[in-house]
């Protein structure tokens, strides 16, 4: 079974530029998550989708971050304009159902460096 796919794996940009990350979850997984993992910290939830609807985006900096999952399958996370503090690994995860099981399947992440 194919896992969660993310691209690009690495991206280096200058501040004020824009960047987009793509995620394809495990087939059939209704719930998709984007996490931000800053060096030395645990992952922090940015946004959670259930199919193509947003369940939780309370920690998404909406002035610069946006995410969509238009057809309820793959998803894109965009940052525009980027700041130095956005340097992090962006993790995508998916789960079969929303609920209190905590069994998320993670991709390998997209590492962003903002110069």
């Amino acid at each position, binding site marked *: 079974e194919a*896992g*969660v796919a993310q691209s690009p794996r690495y991206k280096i940009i200058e501040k004020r530029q824009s960047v987009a990350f793509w995620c394809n979850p495990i087939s059939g997984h209704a*719930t998709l998550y984007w996490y931000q993992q800053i060096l*030395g*910290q*645990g*992952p*922090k*939830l940015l946004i*959670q989708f259930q199919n193509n609807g947003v*369940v*939780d985006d309370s920690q998404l900096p909406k002035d610069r971050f946006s995410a969509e999952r238009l057809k309820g399958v793959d998803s894109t996370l965009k940052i525009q304009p980027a700041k130095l503090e956005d340097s992090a690994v962006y*993790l995508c*995860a998916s*789960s079969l159902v*929303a*609920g*209190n*099981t*905590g*069994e*998320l*399947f*993670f*991709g*390998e*992440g997209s590492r962003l460096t903002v110069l």
Partner: protein
Amino acid sequence: AQSVTQLDSHVSVSEGTPVLLRCNYSSSYSPSLFWYVQHPNKGLQLLLKYTSAATLVKGINGFEAEFKKSETSFHLTKPSAHMSDAAEYFCVSTGGGNKLTFGTGTQLKVEL
């Protein structure tokens, strides 16, 4: 609100010796608790989970954890460390809606 505290940012053990990674949780109700492992440049992988059934939970690769309500702890243990166990380990809690709260992580180093 629920949270977890990982008491050690780095743990170093010799191969073949026991592993103990400590985690305390804070919650106003019985949480669900998990341990995830992250190998370098790899995605996070679920090791084990506690969801109010047996307090001693067995996971993959010989790891286990015990939920102790009186101590609000959920420490991860393994009787004998292997070189392949070197990774970062995250203690995680969730209170509902599958929203996970991660600890800051413990880097496990295994030496020959």
